[in-house]
């Protein structure tokens, strides 16, 4: 598609741009900066601030360059070559400053404020305005995260346009008119968007400020580094600001290939975990208690425990790519085991094969740009807003550009206004997806999805969340649906390190590059670099490792950045496992609930202290950079693994990060997938008896360990535990919305407040994975459990019930 080009001159310089380009963008291409406040390249033009005047030859009026598009032969003059334009801009700045409080010394924006910069550059030195300024009550907390100072506001409407056009949750809006116009929010409401922080960053003055950053620092205090957000697989580009070694702020960086210019509130405000007081930065070894010691002593002890013993590794999807590679190698060479897994889900069945496909078959991969340009998108088993928030914004962007979106999920997601939802019971996804494979069009949600995908052809996208991977077939059927309709396909993991760990082979069946450990040809490619592998039998996955540990079949269990009690969807199994393994080695930032179990602790460097890479869900490796040195004695994970290899009497073969990267690049580079077709037999319609399926997934803001210390974020967005149930199911059980219910499974029971909502599939109940006071993994033995019972609890009984919001034992 070639776009019509338009040639014009700006300040006498010729430039050719596509038709429809705004003058202000064309000027940017020439390096001419026109002052502006309301203009933002990712928002629709507003023309509100009137700062970006330009003169167009032959036109009597000045144009605002942020709203006027280019025309062939247009001769534009900016403030650089037109005195009229310059004077108009100065005059407009005078207008903007009339009612501005000029309180820069106490304003958080002072020092990095576009209004301040422009006032300094060409604003009038003295005010001609002698009357009293307009005043408002201030500061007003819009939420525990965002503070509003209306006096500083220049009413550019960037924040309200962001909420309207980008995040789609219009919490804030302009109220009143004239000089009394102001940003406001409905009385009694909080600005509860998980993207609220973006409005702060795009505010061109100090009207919206971040509470966690309030009065904390000045721009000149900060040392910064460009890095990547560690929270999820979205891979948002962020700038980390540090004052005297302490992280005080995350800001989004612009990257149109990844996060545009946005960042979710978790990525923006959950930055205190590296400085958390519970962090441990010295090695510990259990003697009577856990005693501080040296790395050497711990390594020697681990070497003694492990030689010739059965060793297993669990990681939580938080390892950087280099660390994952080092772990994959040390486990297989030094510890001679294939019992390693990076997943927190209990995956199984065809998902194992799919994992290999996901790593190797680049032809199938999807990028943010593909999503943005897609004509039809099917999102299955993924609540993008809660799990990969920036992907959620891209899906919304695609919808604005005309894509048809279908969501296949047991719960309605916040794409409700732009997508058609097909609510299906957990476990039923495969059956529903099969209808797309079979090409059944027609007048149902699935039918329309099938038709839309077929129409879109290569412009179709199927995104499968990790919840599909828990079903033996679902993810594979999703892939099949994509192949059948010509759509692109991607398995979207949740955590920042998931994709990199999969590629590096932190997986019981896969070596680096998705090579199968039991395929001699593929294994040989790895052995050419690593030397001969002695263990060629596929190992245990995460669930099997825990089961083996519980059965005393494992001697040493490495827990690298993972807490089985909190992270795996079966707390009882995790506890049995920890109780029955002789030696537990914890490698992490802190001990947390593992303190009673750990026999050795290896302090790892946190992400602001690291030079490494994270791979996004797309498969894009992005570099993270250190903004400070490792705290205390902590070391980067890969160095610890290298030390372990030495303790085991071997060597990883690299002493520096560069060597590691050089070695791994050959093994991780793309290659063709050589696996055969799966033994797919068709899922068939599931049979249901009258029982409920309990399912869970983590919400964006929960008790996760990387959110530690983010008190404002939690105050704003962390929900109390709740249980969602469909009205039909609630009626059968005489459950009323807002009351409390007891949910009982084979694993345990809990009393939780109930929400009766049609936004959940019939026959399903949902509890969030890890909200304060209720860890859902105590109710589950997997991410979903059939055969749950839910019963109403009388208010009086609930008040008297000591188990309220707590979890009992088995039934």
């Amino acid at each position: 598609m070639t776009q019509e080009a338009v040639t014009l001159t700006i300040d006498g310089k010729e430039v050719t741009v596509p038709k429809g380009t705004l003058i202000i963008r064309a000027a940017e291409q020439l390096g001419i900066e026109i002052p502006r406040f309301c203009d933002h390249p990712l928002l629709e033009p507003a023309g509100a601030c009137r700062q970006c005047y330009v003169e167009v030859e032959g036109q009597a009026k000045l144009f605002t360059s942020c709203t006027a598009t280019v025309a062939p032969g247009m001769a534009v003059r900016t403030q650089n070559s037109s005195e009229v334009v310059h004077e108009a801009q100065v005059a407009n700045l005078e207008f903007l400053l009339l009612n501005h409080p000029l309180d820069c010394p106490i304003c958080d924006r002072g020092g990095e404020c576009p209004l301040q910069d422009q006032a300094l550059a060409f604003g009038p030195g003295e005010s001609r305005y002698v009357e009293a300024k307009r005043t408002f009550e201030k500061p007003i907390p819009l939420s525990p995260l965002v503070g509003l100072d209306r006096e500083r506001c220049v009413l550019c409407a960037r924040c309200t346009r962001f909420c309207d056009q980008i995040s789609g949750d219009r919490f804030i809006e302009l109220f009143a008119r004239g000089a009394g116009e102001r940003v406001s929010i409905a009385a009694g409401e909080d600005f509860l968007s998980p993207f609220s922080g973006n409005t702060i960053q795009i505010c061109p003055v100090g009207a919206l400020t971040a509470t966690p950053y309030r009065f904390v620092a000045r721009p000149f205090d900060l040392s910064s580094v460009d890095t990547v957000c560690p929270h999820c697989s979205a891979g948002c580009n962020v700038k980390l600001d540090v004052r005297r070694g302490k992280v005080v702020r995350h800001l989004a960086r612009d990257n149109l290939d990844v996060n545009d210019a946005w960042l979710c509130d978790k990525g923006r405000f959950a930055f205190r975990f590296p400085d958390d007081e519970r962090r441990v930065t010295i090695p510990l070894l259990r003697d009577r208690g856990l005693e501080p010691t040296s790395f050497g002593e711990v390594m020697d002890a681990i070497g003694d425990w492990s030689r010739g013993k059965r060793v297993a590794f669990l990681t939580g999807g938080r390892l950087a790519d280099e660390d994952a590679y080092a772990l994959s190698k040390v486990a297989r060479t030094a510890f001679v085991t294939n019992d390693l897994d990076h997943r927190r889900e209990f995956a199984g069945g065809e998902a194992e094969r799919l994992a290999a496909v996901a790593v190797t078959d680049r032809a199938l991969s999807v990028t943010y740009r593909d999503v943005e340009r897609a004509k039809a998108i099917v999102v299955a088993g993924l609540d993008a807003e809660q799990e990969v928030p920036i992907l959620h914004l891209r899906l919304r962007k695609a919808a604005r550009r005309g894509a048809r979106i279908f969501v296949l999920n047991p719960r309605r997601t916040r794409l409700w206004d732009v997508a058609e939802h097909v609510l299906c019971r957990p476990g039923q996804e495969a059956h529903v997806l099969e209808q797309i494979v079979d090409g059944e069009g027609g007048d149902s949600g699935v039918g329309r999805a099938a038709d839309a995908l077929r129409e879109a052809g290569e412009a179709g996208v199927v995104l499968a969340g990790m919840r599909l991977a828990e079903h033996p077939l679902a993810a594979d059927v999703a892939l099949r649906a994509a192949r059948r309709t010509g759509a692109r396909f991607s398995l979207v993991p949740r955590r920042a390190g998931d994709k990199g760990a999969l590629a590096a082979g932190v997986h019981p069946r896969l070596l680096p590059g998705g090579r199968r450990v039991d395929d001699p040809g593929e294994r040989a490619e790895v052995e050419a670099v690593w030397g001969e592998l002695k263990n060629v039998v596929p190992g245990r996955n995460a669930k099997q490792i825990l089961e083996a540990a519980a059965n005393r079949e494992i001697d040493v269990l490495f827990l690298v950045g993972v807490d089985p009690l909190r992270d795996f969807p079966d707390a009882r199994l995790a506890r049995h496992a920890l109780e029955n393994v002789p030696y537990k080695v914890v490698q992490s930032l802190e001990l947390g609930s593992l303190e009673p179990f750990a026999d050795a602790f290896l302090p790892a460097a946190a992400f602001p202290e690291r030079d490494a890479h994270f791979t996004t869900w797309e498969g894009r490796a992005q570099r993270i950079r250190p903004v400070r040195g490792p705290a205390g004695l902590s070391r980067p994970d890969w160095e610890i693994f290298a030390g372990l290899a030495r303790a085991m009497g071997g060597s990883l073969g690299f002493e520096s990060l560069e060597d590691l990267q050089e070695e791994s690049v050959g093994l991780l580079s793309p290659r063709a997938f050589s696996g055969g077709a799966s033994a797919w037999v068709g899922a068939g319609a599931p049979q249901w008896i009258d029982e409920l399926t309990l399912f869970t997934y983590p919400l964006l803001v929960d008790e996760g360990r990387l959110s530690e210390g983010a008190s404002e974020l939690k105050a704003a967005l962390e929900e109390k535990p709740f249980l969602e149930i469909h009205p039909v199911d609630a009626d059968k059980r005489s459950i009323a919305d807002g009351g409390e219910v007891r949910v009982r499974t084979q694993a345990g029971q809990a009393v939780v407040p109930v929400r009766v909502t049609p936004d959940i599939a019939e026959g399903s109940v949902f509890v969030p994975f890890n909200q304060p006071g209720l860890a859902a993994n105590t109710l589950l033995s997997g991410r979903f459990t059939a055969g749950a019972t839910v019963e109403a609890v009388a208010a009086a009984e609930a008040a008297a019930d000591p188990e309220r919001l707590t979890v009992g034992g088995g039934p």
Partner: protein
Amino acid sequence: MSRGEQRPQDFLGGLAAAARGMGVVIKQVFRPDVTERYPQQIDEPPPRSHIGRHLLNRYENGLEKCIGCELCAYACPADAIWVEGADNDPENPVSPGERHAKDYQINYLRCIMCGLCVEACPTRALTMTHAYEMAFTSREDAIFTKEQLLEPPLPLGTAPGTQEG
């Protein structure tokens, strides 16, 4: 002309010059002494001199003038000033307005007494005093805290380190 062949008038001229030089010396011998016998005798600096330690001022109602804006720290060429801002409790404010200085430190091992911080202060909270006695026995003592800076300096001659004379 070679050396040793001095003519008589050169010799006389030399004598006259030597006498003039000695005249200056003798004149200086009888001039009054300007050396101050510090610390036995301490002359007060002129009343409006701003040559020494900083002072954080208060308004007449007792509120601190400092709003914790850090502009002094920004202006400081020696990076001697550390400021940490914080919210004012509206019920019990430390300074007028929303922000006050939770912490304020000046490191006098770094400070070069240039006064740029005073120039930068938007509320006239920071001024300099005449207290030029800046001798310390430890590095910690050289870092003045906010509490110290809010107090007027001790009279000259009473600061620790000036006693043993």
